[in-house]
């Protein structure tokens, strides 16, 4: 069923354009049925997996030589992600049906979206790391297609390319890491790696593996300093932002780290790196969120910040610590909903700016409720699910060595989240007039938000509320199972997730209330604070990866341009020179390396006077053909050279070849004379300096060919199939001229091909000659007129 869910979704992606054509406006609802069905199946396993069961279907061999097999494994962590992917996926597909209703490319969009869903599901349920990597890359590609969906906008295309290049480069690093890991562990199955964790962490390759895997995860999950692509990815339509770039794809890196934590995580290097990386991302992106003004950008930076928190929590995770799972789940629910609200608001008001949207409570009451629920959860206000998730995060960091520092960081991030939540929700919902007032504000569109456009975010908002009030319903088993999979011990629900009134009371006197208070203050001071952050970011951007990214991209383009201009100049002579010299260097190096020249043993068999004269004739004729000044002399010299070669064939036992060569040589000379009659005399066209250069190339080429012949005759080669031809010519083919028998019997099909070439050439020649006649006639007619 796991394999079926992944591959059925891929198939559905192919069919999506067709479904959209048939179902029309209802296509979102129709297409959402598939993920809903699979979501129900995955959810039905919740109890079993919550109790520690792991579902492993039979492996399907793919490329056994590489250790690549289609193996799936559904444990707590996979289930947590699978439910998020399919659950939120169901809502997003229905939502996209409304958000892009009537869009001419809706079919294409749905195909990409569902293909992404299938790939992402593949990432989380794969047990084979190579298989996981393939799905991982597929998510990058579908993400590229979705970010660049509005491909008539340059910004979209640039952002899509940026996301692809950053995550693609990280993907390459990850592949190298995966291969190293597989070689050290001697398996690519994660389940088997778990048993060899000690070997792997003790291996000398461990640092390399750690760095490479971290690079892959950090680029995918937009960790500092690779965070810059994610806010730009908001050029995508709202369903994509809600789905890929907040609740699922960007968590792939987090997923990978959580997945490999039991394998790689038992070292200080792991804990320290992840903690620092996560904390830096969390705070840096949180600050940047405050200087942003559009809904999606604020949300994008808080997403980066939340991803940082998750990486931090993987670093600080201890057995039985459910903070990571709870935080991932909480974030997916509220952030998905918030992005959907942003999309709905933009759909109706045609505005992206948080300062221009006002009075939503009146105009869009249901969306306002969803927005408020999401924002409250993001700020960590009880009784929404965001609050216990934050409490667990605090509890997680207090168990570490630098508890105070990390606790302060978490409180700071809570404050930043609160401020961001106020930015997206406070004024837009409650204020009456935009600030600052601007007569140029676009008039609200006449768009009405469809049922899914309002319903999907509202459902997620309510889900966050239900999860906060009654965690035992589905949150606790999920967190328990996931924690068991990542930390090796099951999470035991405490009062933090339990009794609601108690939580609310403790919250009021705890550090979380402090965080919210600071957050409100930050919100009030957001203009000067944002300006400060802006200035710091500008300075950083000059030296930091965004600038480096741009610089590398420009340099790569410049290099490509240079090599095209230099190598692909369009001059035939240049192509030949480059090819010959390049070939000479490569072959020469090979000959030098294998010392093939030492094997040359010139067999000076008796050289008769006649032979010497023959060779002299060929050499002189060839030189003559190249040096004479008139066409006719050149053709004559060419004929002499051909005659010499005919004589060589006679001398060395090839009478048939000699006859053919003689006949063809005569014909060639005739053709040349006839054809060249009208062509111009030879001229000196090349500059002397160029001539010397070309002479060198030619001499090198000739030298190379001579050496090739000498090497070939000195080496004893493997027996050829000639013996077969000699022995079977008479008994089987009833011919005594072996060469003839080869041509017309053993290799008759080749000869047929050869005849075809001759025929084609004849047709070509005839066509070219005819063409001239007609053209001349046309010209004559024109002249007459």
């Amino acid at each position, binding site marked *: 069923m796991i394999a079926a869910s992944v591959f059925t979704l891929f198939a559905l992606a192919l069919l999506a354009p067709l479904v959209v054509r048939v179902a029309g406006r209802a296509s979102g609802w129709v297409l959402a049925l598939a993920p809903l069905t699979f979501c129900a199946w995955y959810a039905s396993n919740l109890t079993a997996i919550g109790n520690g069961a792991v579902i492993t279907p039979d492996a399907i061999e793919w490329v056994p030589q590489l250790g690549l097999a289609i193996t799936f494994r559904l444990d707590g962590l996979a289930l947590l992600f699978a439910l998020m992917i399919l659950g939120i996926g169901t809502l997003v597909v229905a939502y996209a049906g409304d958000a892009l209703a009537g869009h001419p490319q809706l079919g294409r969009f749905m195909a990409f979206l569902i293909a992404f869903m299938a790939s992402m599901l593949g990432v989380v349920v794969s047990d084979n790391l190579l298989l996981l990597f393939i799905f991982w890359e597929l998510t990058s590609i579908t993400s590229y297609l979705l970010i660049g969906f509005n491909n008539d906008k340059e910004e979209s295309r640039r952002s899509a390319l940026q996301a692809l290049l950053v995550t693609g480069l990280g993907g390459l690093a990850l592949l190298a890491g995966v291969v190293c890991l597989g070689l050290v562990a001697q398996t690519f199955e994660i389940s088997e790696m778990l048993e060899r964790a000690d070997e792997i962490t003790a291996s000398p390759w461990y640092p390399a593996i750690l760095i490479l895997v971290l690079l892959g995860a950090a680029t995918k999950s937009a960790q500092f300093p690779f965070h810059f692509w994610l806010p730009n990815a908001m050029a995508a339509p709202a369903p994509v932002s809600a789905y890929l770039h907040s609740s699922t794809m960007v968590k792939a890196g987090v997923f990978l780290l959580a997945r490999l934590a039991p394998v790689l995580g038992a070292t200080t290097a792991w804990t320290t790196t992840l903690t620092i990386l996560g904390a830096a991302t969390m705070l840096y992106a949180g600050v940047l969120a405050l200087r942003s003004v559009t809904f999606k950008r604020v949300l994008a930076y808080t997403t980066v910040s939340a991803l940082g928190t998750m990486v931090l929590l993987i670093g600080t995770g201890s057995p039985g610590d459910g903070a990571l799972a709870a935080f991932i789940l909480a974030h997916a629910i509220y952030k998905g909903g918030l992005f959907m609200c942003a999309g709905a608001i933009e759909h109706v008001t045609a505005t992206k700016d948080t300062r221009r949207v006002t009075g939503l409570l009146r105009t869009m009451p249901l969306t306002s409720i969803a927005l408020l629920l999401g924002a409250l959860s993001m700020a960590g206000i009880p009784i929404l699910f965001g609050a216990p998730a934050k409490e667990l995060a605090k509890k997680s960091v207090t168990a570490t060595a630098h508890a105070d520092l990390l606790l302060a960081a978490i409180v700071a991030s809570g404050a930043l989240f609160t401020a961001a939540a106020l930015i997206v929700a406070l004024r837009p919902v409650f204020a009456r007039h935009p600030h600052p007032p601007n007569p140029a504000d676009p008039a609200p569109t006449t768009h009405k938000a469809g049922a899914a456009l309002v319903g999907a975010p509202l459902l997620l908002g309510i889900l966050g509320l239900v999860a906060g009030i009654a965690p035992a319903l589905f949150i606790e088993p999920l967190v328990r199972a996931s924690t068991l999979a990542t930390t090796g011990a099951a999470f035991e629900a405490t009062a933090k997730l339990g009794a609601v009134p108690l939580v609310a009371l403790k919250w009021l006197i705890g550090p979380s209330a402090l965080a919210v208070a600071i957050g409100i203050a930050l919100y009030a001071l957001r203009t000067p604070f944002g300006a400060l952050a802006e200035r710091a970011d500008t300075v950083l951007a000059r030296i930091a990866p965004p600038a480096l990214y741009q610089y590398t991209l420009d340099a790569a383009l410049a290099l490509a341009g240079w090599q095209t201009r230099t190598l692909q100049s369009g*001059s035939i*002579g240049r192509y*030949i020179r480059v090819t010959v010299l390049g070939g000479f260097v490569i072959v020469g190096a090979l000959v030098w390396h294998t010392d093939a020249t030492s094997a040359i043993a*010139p067999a000076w068999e008796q*050289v008769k006077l006649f*032979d010497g004269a023959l*060779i002299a004739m*060929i*050499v002189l004729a*060839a*030189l003559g053909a*190249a040096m004479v000044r008139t*066409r006719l002399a050149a053709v004559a010299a060419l004929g002499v*050279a051909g005659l010499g070669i005919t004589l*060589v064939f006679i001398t*060395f*036992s090839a*009478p*048939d*070849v000699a006859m053919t060569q003689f006949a063809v040589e005569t*014909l*060639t000379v005739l*053709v040349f004379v006839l*054809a060249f009659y*009208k*062509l111009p005399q*030879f001229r000196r*066209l*090349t500059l002397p300096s160029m001539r010397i250069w070309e002479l060198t*190339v*030619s001499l090198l*080429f*000739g030298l190379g*060919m*001579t050496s*090739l*012949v000498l090497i*070939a*005759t000195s080496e004893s080669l493997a027996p*050829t199939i*000639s013996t077969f*031809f*000699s022995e079977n*010519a008479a008994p089987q083919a009833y011919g*005594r*001229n*072996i*060469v003839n028998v*080869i*041509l017309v019997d053993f*290799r008759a099909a*080749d*000869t047929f091909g050869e005849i075809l070439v001759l025929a084609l*050439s004849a047709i070509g*020649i005839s066509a*070219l*000659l005819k*063409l*001239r006649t007609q053209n001349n006639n*046309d010209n004559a007619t024109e002249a007459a007129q």
Partner: protein
Amino acid sequence: MTPLLALSTGVLFATGMYMLLRRSIVKILIGLVLMGHGANLLILTSAGILRGSPPLIPQGEERIADAHADPLPQALILTAIVISFAIVSFACVLVKRAYEIAGTDDTEAMRSSELPIGSDPGGADT
């Protein structure tokens, strides 16, 4: 004898390459023929040469008893000769045609003499 044949192979390839690098398309054609000769000699010589023992089975016998010239390279050369004749003949006419249309036999000049848009590309539309 082999070294001498290797030498003439080299000379044929060198002169052929030199002619291929010329700017006149007529010379390029001559280079093509020279290279074809070189290639045939290369095949013959590389396979090992033998005097006066063609791959012919004497009347009344089933196979050749003694050493004889390798028939396979000869079959290859035969094919090569015919194919290169087809190519050279076609190229001859093509070169003639190109000269008529472009009004020059200089490949560099041909490169830069793109016909202006809308002009008759020399009967290609007929």
